[in-house]
Structure formats: C-alpha cells, structure tokens
C-alpha cells in the first residue's frame, strides 16, 4: 500500500517537473519577444498586432504552468512566525492540512474553468483586434490544464505528507533557532 502511495507521489511530482522544465523557457521567450517588439518598432518601424498579443500569451503560460512547478521546487511563501517553532510532527500536520486545502481549491478552479473554455470554444473565439491571434480558447484551455497540473502537484504533496506522518518518510526539519 505505502509503496503504491510512494510511487504515485513520485510519479505525480515527476510529471510536474517535466512539464515545468519545458514551460520554463516561456520566460526567456517572453524576454526575447518583448525586446524584439520594442527594438523592431524603434529601429525599423516594424510591428504586428499578433506579436504584441503573443507577449501576454507567453506571460499567461509562465504564470499558469509555473504555479505547480514552483511548489514542486519548494517555493511556498508562508508566515513562519509560529511555524518555525513547531515540532516536526506538528509541521507535517500543518503542511498536510494546507496541501489538502490546495488540492481542493485547485480542483474546484480547474472544474470551474471547463465551462469558461467551452463558452469560448462554442463561438470559435479569436482576438477582438484585426490581425490578432485567433483560437483564444486554446489560451483559455491553459487555465483548466494548469490547475489540473496544480492538483497533481498538490496530490503529490498530500501523499508525501501521509507518508511522513506514518513514519515512512523523514519529517520536516526543525529550524536551528
């Protein structure tokens, strides 16, 4: 049983990491694209609506797919005024509760986003600006997918927490204060 839990947890975590490693390059693409748009406009008077729209399309990818990868890499931000003094077991319990909450919220948001994408797909939504990027629902579809991925990451953390509390993985460390 615990072997299976461990395997699921690792598999989920690995999936998030692989997707994250690919999506991370959207950040570099964003830098190069915005710089290109600025310089091409200034130097050659060249610019297209599609390339300008592509800027915030890339930002959406960075923001959405970064969430799960960031948590995967331990990027959580918390107020640790009390937390840092907790015993390892208490910390593990707090983390487990937090990650169950995260799992619930990301599943709810992923579910809510499906209708939002459908509404866009049903009318073949594109850009309101002539020359803009079409297929707006593809971008919108990134919402439920990213939150599904976030749920997978949350699941990995929940399972990890269960393994910690049942003594099969080491508990969080105490702060050296």
């Amino acid at each position, binding site marked *: 049983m615990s072997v299976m839990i461990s395997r699921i947890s690792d598999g989920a975590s690995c999936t998030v990491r692989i997707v*994250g490693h690919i999506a991370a390059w959207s950040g570099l693409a964003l*830098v190069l694209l*915005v710089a290109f748009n600025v310089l091409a406009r200034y130097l050659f008077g060249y610019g297209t609506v599609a390339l300008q729209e592509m800027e*915030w399309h890339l930002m959406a990818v960075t923001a959405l797919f970064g969430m799960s990868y960031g948590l995967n890499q331990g990027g959580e*931000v918390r107020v640790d*005024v009390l937390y840092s003094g907790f015993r390892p077991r208490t910390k593990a319990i707090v983390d487990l509760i937090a990650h169950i909450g995260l799992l619930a919220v990301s599943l709810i948001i992923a579910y809510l986003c499906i209708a939002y994408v459908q509404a866009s797909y049903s009318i073949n939504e594109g850009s309101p600006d002539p020359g803009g990027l079409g297929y707006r629902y593809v971008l919108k579809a990134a919402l439920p997918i990213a939150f599904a991925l976030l749920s997978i990451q949350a699941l990995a953390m929940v399972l990890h927490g269960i393994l910690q509390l049942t003594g099969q993985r080491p508990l969080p460390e105490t702060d050296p204060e």
Partner: protein
Amino acid sequence: MPYTEILALCMIGAFFVLLLGGIPVAVCLGVTGFAFGYAGFGPMLFTLMPARIFGVVTNYTLLALPLFIFMGIMLEKSRIAEDLLEVIGLAMGGLRGGMALAIILVGVLMGAASGVVGATVVTVGLIALGPIINRGYDAGVASGVICASGTLGQIIPPSLVLILLADIMGESVGTLFAAALFPGLMLAGLFVAYVLLLGVINPKAVPAIPQAERAQYTRRDLALKLFKVVLPPLVLIFLVLGSIIGGVAAPTEAASMGAFGSIVLAALSGRLNFTILRDAVRAAFVTSAMVFLILIFAQPFGLAFRGLGGEHLVQTAFGNVPGGFNGQIFFLMLLLFVLGFFLEWIEISYIALPLFLPVFLSSGADMAWIAILVAMNLQTSFLTPPFGWALFFLKGVAPPSVTTAQIYRGVLPFIGLQVIALSLVFFFPGLATWLPETIGW
C-alpha cells in the same frame, strides 16, 4: 448587521488564524475565499472565477514582473550583482551602511523604471539580500531596507498605483506623476537619513567592510574595479530608464530592455553558458510563478469579500466619522492602512476610494494632493505585517535562514518613516502640488 457581512468578518478572521498557523499565503486566501463565499452566496458567483484569473495572467501591465525578475536572476546567477555590492561596500570605505545606501539608490532607479508591486522587491531581494547578510548586516535591517526601497517604485513615477488612482479620481496621469516625484524622493531621503543614523547608533547592524580587507586594495585598484563592476548594471538601468525617457519603449515594455541586456552582459562577461542560462530560466520561472500564485489565489478571496458585501462594512464605518474634512482624511488614511492588512491594493482602491470621492470633491481640496496621500498610504500597506505584499515577495526569495519575524521587525522603522513622510505631505501640500502647477500639467 446582515448575515453575509458577519461572514465577511469571519472570513478575515479565519484568514489571519490560518496565516499565523503557518499555512502558505496562497492556500489561506483560496480556502477562506471559497469556504466563506460558498456559505454566503452559494456557487453562482464563483463562475466568475475563471474570468478573474484569466484577467490576472493576461494583464498587460504585469508584464514588467516576469521581465524584471528575469533580469534580477540573471544578474544573480552571473554574480554581477554580488561583485557590485562588494565593490560599493569597499568604495564607501569606513562609512557604515554603505551597501544599504546602494540598495536605496537601486530602489529609486528601478522605481523610476517600473511601477509594478513586487518587481523591485523581488529583484533587489534576489541580488542583494544574501550578499549583505554575508557581509554581517543584521537580517532584519537588510530585509527592511530592501522591502522599503522596493516599494519606492509605487510612489516614484511611473507607477501602477498612480495610474489606477488617476483613473478613479479623475486626474490626468501626468499630473499625478509630477505630483508624486518630490514626495517619492523625500521618502527615499528619509530612508537614507535613517540608515546613516543607524550607522551611528547601532553600528553592528550595518557594518562597513573591515579595514584589513579594504587595505588590500589601493585607490587605483578600487577605481578600476569600481569601473569594471559598476558599469554593467548601470548600463542596464540606463537601458531601462533611457528607453522610457528616450521614447523607445512604453513603461511596461522597458523592463525587457533590462532583461535582454542582462543576458547580453552575462555573455560579454564570459560567464554565460547553457547551464547558467537554464538555471536562470528555471529560477525566474519559479520566482515569477510564486508571485502570480499569490495574485491568482487572492482572486477567490477578493470575489468573496465583494460577494459578501464586505464594502458595506466599510461604508457603515465611514458613516460614523466625526470631525469634518480633516477627520475624514484621517479616517481614510486609517482605513487604507487597516484594509492593507488583509486586502491587496487594487481591491482597496476600488472599495475605499469611491466612498470618499464625493466628500473630497465637494471640499474643493486639490485632488492630486489627496491622490498622493492615498498612494503613499497604499505603499505603506505593502509593508505592514502580517499581510504585506512586499513582505511575502521578499520572503519568497530570501535565504531560508531569514525568518518572517526578522522581516517584520526590520520593516517597522520604515513604516514609521512612511508615516512621517505622509504627515509632511499632509501638512505641506505644496510638496505634491508645486511641481504639477509649475510645469502646467
């Protein structure tokens, strides 16, 4: 009091309990938002959630965030920033607090280039916090300087806060930009004075680089080193600021000049290879996403606060304010400050300002002056524990050894300085109104 407004209060209470219990910020916001929102108005309003999230991740003005973060990470990974602070510390000689002064200067310059909450705090936090703590700075003081300098960008034009306020208050963006310039610089001046004072009364918190180490460098060595190390980052800042002033880029896109420039710099310094680039790309991805994670998970909370009629609570309180115009200004300042404990600034502006606008308009007071008071106050709210955006953003990039308690303690004096600056603008409105009147904006 209606049932939903009681729920709104409970939601705020629950948020604080979870937050102090050590639950991650994003989870606190998301869970309390959904739980209390559902109890108050059921599932229907939550169908708006995807629209709000889509709005955040496609918000054009937030582009500066990933761009500046990329620049900061690149400077950090290529160790340009570390060298820079070190050399500045050396160049300041025996002056205590030298590196903190350099951070304030960077805050002012980056503030003049960007107006997005968090962009400067994260960038400066990334490049400077570790190095100056290694140099013996008190972690609290170091965090305080970075948070406070990082939020200067909200008052030094251009700034998102000012753009939004211009919209709400019916002032031109240019007028507010001009009005904010002197108060912003004055605030930076207060920070400088405080750091210098700290060097006298608490020298251990802001040590100078030891004499022995300084003695290893001759003046010429140092001058050469200074030139070599200071020049590149200065070029970056010049690229960003210069592209705005020179009409090459609009404020938001100007950040790309810095980010792109940082890649070129790293390449020129010979420190760029695939591993460094890949690590920088991944680190920037994580850091940007952690800022967005909080912004995204703030959406259920904001929606629930609205849906539960939370703004009525504020309205009711406003109805009971005594003491005429000054009383109302004072109450507004207090209210913004308190709301800053648990709401993000956009939400605050939308809830609080429309309530007060009719009063201020009928008083005949200078709206630009009021806008600057409001902007400084909102800026303070980024710093107020326990919920201050700047504090979270810094925590997100701080070395693990830096605790939240240290950050909280470190920002307190700066909050005091903000209050002093705010009072100065209140008692001497000319600080805000003189420039726009003089240049005719």
